[in-house]
């Protein structure tokens, strides 16, 4: 029996786990796929390979799928996201002497408290003639938008009080050490690298900013997905099974060994093992701290692409001035996420399928059962640090009114 080849581009990050495990644990092959993983070192290249046919699908930062569909930074190409590869897993790391001013070094703290100290630090730096410089992985990334959301929610004026720049994660630790940046918001395992070297201290995780923050997605060209639906469905099933394995505690060593191997992350299995267990090393000689839901890859239908997640990202792109908000683009952005494909692909596995395609983000304060077309589903707290809610329909009305007002 011949396997269908699917080339999937990825960056060596812990949250590329599902594609990697789909291949290495045999789930792709079970689904009749020869999954070929193509490792690259920048989102630009992962994206270009996807756009120009070198890869069939990609591990991608969610906002970039939306940006590309809207024609930002590249000519518009419609991308689809039928599967979310993971939530959160990112952290904000500052130079140690700065971290000491905003948090109890080595421990997890209160995000609101730390936010107000960040504001004080920001104004202090600005007054001393050198604005705080913070590096994020890409302008179209959850790292950027969640950092901005937290900073501005803490009273910091993003255009005047602080500089947010783009930094390549492999060089983030060096940049902190050389004082080229004062802080970074990057994904696992790069915060660990900086902390273990003693050049950075984690002050917060993005899971503290938004308990269910959309992070990496499986992206593919819509045309491709439409042309080969059965192949893509098989890929989704393989990834889902990889997720089941990922959260199985008895497979921790196996998973850590695979991820840290040379052809994948080529990194410290100790650091990677910590991340997989939601353990965060906040400072060099501290004990790792368990941060609930630090990296959330599978449970509670975490892989379901809620259109409201795309909606929230779009709203942040508007806040950042990356797009001028309008209702048509908002609809386009939300349609990038394809819950219908998720349901069609995973239905046969008998797994829980949410009935709704969007939700009010941040509204769940206690675990609650939600409507499903199959199976039972309980969603846990998904709050934003400031207690706010994102209602995707209300936001659309806001955009419509703004359009009308022009």
């Amino acid at each position, binding site marked *: 029996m011949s396997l269908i080849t699917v080339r999937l581009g990825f960056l060596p990050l812990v949250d590329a786990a599902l594609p990697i495990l789909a291949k290495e644990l045999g789930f792709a092959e079970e689904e009749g796929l020869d999954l070929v993983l193509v490792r*690259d070192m920048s989102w*630009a290249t992962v994206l270009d390979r996807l756009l*120009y046919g*070198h890869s069939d699908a990609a591990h991608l930062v969610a906002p970039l799928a939306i940006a590309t569909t809207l024609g930002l930074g590249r000519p518009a190409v419609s991308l689809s996201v039928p599967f979310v590869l993971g939530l959160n897993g990112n952290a904000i790391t500052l130079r140690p002497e700065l971290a000491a001013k905003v948090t109890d070094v080595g421990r997890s703290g209160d995000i609101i408290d730390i936010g107000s100290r960040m504001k004080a630090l920001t104004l202090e730096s600005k007054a001393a003639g050198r604005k705080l410089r913070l590096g994020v992985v890409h302008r179209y990334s959850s790292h950027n938008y969640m950092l901005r959301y937290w900073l501005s929610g803490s009273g910091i004026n993003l255009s005047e009080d602080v500089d947010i720049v*783009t*930094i390549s994660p492999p060089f983030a630790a060096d940049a902190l050490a050389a004082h080229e940046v004062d802080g970074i918001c990057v994904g696992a395992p790069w915060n660990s690298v900086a902390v273990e070297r003693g050049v950075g201290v984690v002050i917060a995780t993005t899971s503290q900013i938004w308990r269910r923050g959309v992070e990496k997605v499986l992206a593919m060209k819509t045309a491709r997905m439409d042309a080969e639906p059965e192949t893509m469905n098989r890929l989704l099933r393989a990834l889902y099974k990889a997720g089941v394995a990922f959260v199985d505690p008895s497979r921790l060593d196996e998973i850590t060994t695979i991820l840290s191997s040379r052809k994948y992350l080529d990194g410290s299995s100790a650091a990677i093992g910590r991340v997989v267990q939601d353990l965060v090393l906040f400072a060099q000689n501290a004990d790792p701290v368990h941060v609930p839901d630090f990296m959330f890859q599978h449970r509670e239908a975490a892989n379901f692409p809620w259109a409201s997640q795309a909606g929230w990202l779009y709203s942040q792109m508007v806040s950042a001035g990356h797009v001028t908000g309008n209702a048509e683009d908002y609809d386009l952005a939300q349609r990038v996420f394809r819950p219908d494909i998720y349901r069609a692909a995973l239905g046969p596995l008998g797994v829980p399928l949410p009935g709704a395609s969007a939700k009010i983000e941040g509204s769940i304060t206690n675990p609650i059962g939600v409507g499903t077309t199959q199976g039972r589903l309980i969603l846990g707290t998904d709050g934003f640090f400031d207690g706010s809610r994102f209602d995707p329909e209300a936001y659309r009305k806001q955009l419509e009114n703004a359009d009308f007002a022009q």
Partner: protein
Amino acid sequence: MRIAVVDESPARGAVIAEGLEASGITDITVLVERHGLVAQIEKLSPDVVLIDLANPRRDELEELFAVSRAISRPIAMFVDQADEKSIEAAIDAGVSAYVVDGMKPERIRSVLDVAIKRFHAFSRLRSELDEARGQLAERKAIDEAKALLMKKRGLDEPGAYAALRKAAMDSGRKIADVADALLTADKLLGEL
């Protein structure tokens, strides 16, 4: 036309630059250093920037180009829709090109063609070199394994080679792999 070639491999950077010079362009700077790369490009203010796809700094550089759009010299990835084939060929070769706004497509096409040809040529050279190195390493391992067998089992050279070849055939492996395994085993056992 001012061209910046960003390449972590000084050898490949030189090969590209040479190709561009041969096509008549004189203002070429090859940037190899990771450190201060963004600042260097900002200072140079090139018309065209060629970057290998594998460079981990592409995202930083694209951000620089995006921001520069707001300043005086907008620079974007060569994205004229009519030239999708060119971009595909470039990505195939492993290079990306960023071009200042307003540059005529024909001028870029020839630059890109040179870059693509040179990237491919360098790629071939590197494969040939890797293969030659590999063959050399294999040759060395086989010679060392033969010497070991000759010493430890009192075989002559043809006998030692025959032993290796038989072991390889019996286990369905390459002679070089069997040689490697023998040398490794000898090292480990020797330490007992």
